[in-house]
């Protein structure tokens, strides 16, 4: 019997569960110089906004122990240029596409969903709600179950029922499972866990914050235990929802950890910065690990760590 590596989010199928992470794959083109994008489950695009944005001043990065901070500030060309350039290129190269969108107002989310509704060739929408809400003192949408749901609701109402919505959550909250539940009630098919954690580095030479934007998002292996915990908690609360796991996955074993915790797919972000072919290597390693552990399909392994250990249903 051949191993079935496929996965599903909402109504969309993917031949394997390894994706890029939003904001960590450029527009796809740049990575395509290192491997064929069709090898991945899908490319998740950088979060695209309504208007072009120049982002935050440099320096925009600081390396931290087993991680990094970034303060890109959602730099991007805006939805129109994105649809004119990036999407056609990805389609022409047969890449499966998950479009990540971000807004500053509920109206932005509605607008972006409506605009994308008419665009063919998109497998799912990832809705990045870890952005400051300009109408609410800059509080991040996903920090509150009500604003999180409002953003998801705005997307759901403006896009086809068959388009899977993956709500991307911030870990900087008191109860991530509650936010997840609220997003699902509002129409999300899946959760993307986790976005970066808010962090800061102070440059001890200048004795000032190192990043131009002062604070930045912490990513990389340092945050993996937080991500695994978030995935495990949300899987426990919502046994049947889709989960796209991410946060510090650097090899197949890391990916397996998240799958066992409950992820139906894995996005690879920071690891790609250190190694351009990381997503493909991780895909191959994960497949080999799952086979060596005796799983017949990827789906069988999802959430396997939630089983009762005394039942001893371990593989092999």
């Amino acid at each position, binding site marked *: 019997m051949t191993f079935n590596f496929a996965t599903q989010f909402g109504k969309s199928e993917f031949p394997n569960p390894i994706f890029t992470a939003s904001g960590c794959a*450029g527009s796809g083109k740049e990575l395509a110089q290192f491997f064929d994008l069709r090898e991945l489950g899908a490319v998740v695009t950088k979060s695209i906004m309504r208007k072009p944005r120049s982002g935050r001043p440099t320096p925009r990065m600081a390396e931290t122990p087993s991680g990094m901070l970034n303060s890109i500030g959602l730099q991007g060309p805006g939805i129109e240029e994105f649809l004119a350039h990036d999407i056609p290129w990805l389609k022409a190269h047969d890449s499966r596409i998950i479009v990540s969108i971000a807004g500053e107002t509920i109206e932005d989310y509605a607008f972006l969903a409506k605009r994308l509704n008419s665009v063919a060739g998109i497998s799912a929408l990832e809705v990045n709600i870890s952005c400051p809400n300009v109408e609410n003192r800059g509080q991040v949408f996903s920090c509150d179950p009500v604003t999180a749901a409002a953003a998801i609701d705005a997307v759901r109402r403006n896009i086809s029922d068959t388009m899977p919505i993956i709500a991307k959550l911030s870990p900087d909250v008191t109860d991530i499972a509650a936010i997840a539940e609220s997003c699902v009630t509002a129409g999300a098919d899946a959760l993307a866990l986790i976005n970066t954690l808010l962090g800061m580095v102070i440059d001890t030479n200048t004795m000032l914050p190192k990043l131009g934007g002062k604070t930045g998002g912490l990513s990389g292996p340092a945050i993996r235990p937080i991500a695994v915990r978030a995935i495990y908690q949300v899987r426990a609360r919502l046994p049947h929802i889709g989960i796209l796991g991410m946060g510090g996955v650097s090899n197949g074993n890391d990916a397996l950890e998240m799958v066992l915790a409950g992820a139906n797919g894995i996005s690879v972000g920071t690891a790609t910065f250190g190694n351009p072919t990381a997503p493909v290597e991780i895909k191959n390693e994960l497949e080999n690990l799952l086979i060596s552990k005796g799983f017949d399909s990827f789906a069988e392994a999802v959430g396997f760590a939630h089983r009762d250990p005394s039942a001893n249903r371990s593989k092999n």
Partner: protein
Amino acid sequence: MINKYAQTIKSELISNKKVGAYHHLVFEVGTMASHVRPGNFVAISVGGPTSSMVLRRAFAIHRSMDRGASGGVIELVVAPHGNGSKWLTSLPIGSYVKLTGPLGTSFGIPTEQVRALLVGGGYGSAPLFGLAEVLKSRGSRVDMVLGASTAGKIYAPIEGKRSVNSMTITTDDGSAGVHGRVSDVLPEIIERNSCEIIYSCGPMAMLAAISEIADKYNLIHQCAVEESMACGIGICMTCVIPLVDDEGQIRMQRSCIAGPVVDGERVIWNTGGSIPEGTLGAL
């Protein structure tokens, strides 16, 4: 397409020599060497398999040598700065590193003869010697100015010095050459040699000062910029600088793929840590 020939390889360190404040490193890179153009850089993983440093380090390629079937080598000039470069410069020969290259844009080289002025700050001189060789091989005149805070930080190998028509050195502390900055000596050299184009590489403040001089003398100025880079291949958006595009629009562009070598005229210098007014998101 940028980085068309970029490969990721395991590369052996075959020489590691301390030269003043720097280390001169030589790596076996096989066929990669044949694709290197002056100005390109490589990105190297640091710290070994259980390293806490997750990002690669960028280094300009000092010189590359294609030796055909027996495989090529590249040379780097590395300052032991923080943990990553200190790790790299302390590697014993025979060590292997993971390395991706050649990356980024290269210096544009006119097919006709030109009167070129090459200006380097600190280890910024590294890519200029390879460039000088190509220019000389096309019959161009090459004058070179190297500046640094102190004598030990001037990187100027003897063969390199010999291969240029003139070499001027400046140091902030006067420990070698002219006491002062490169910008202090440039006008005189430009006028004396009727330079037509400036190639530069070094700290951003130096490049800004050179740009001003290039402007004044109406010279072309190709400079290799240096911004903090997380990926080096265009996927992270950390390394952006404000560049004016063909339509006159300022955009935050990735210095790892739109650069490191850019047209000095297009850079908005001295932004004082903020985004210039009217800047749009990059593509």
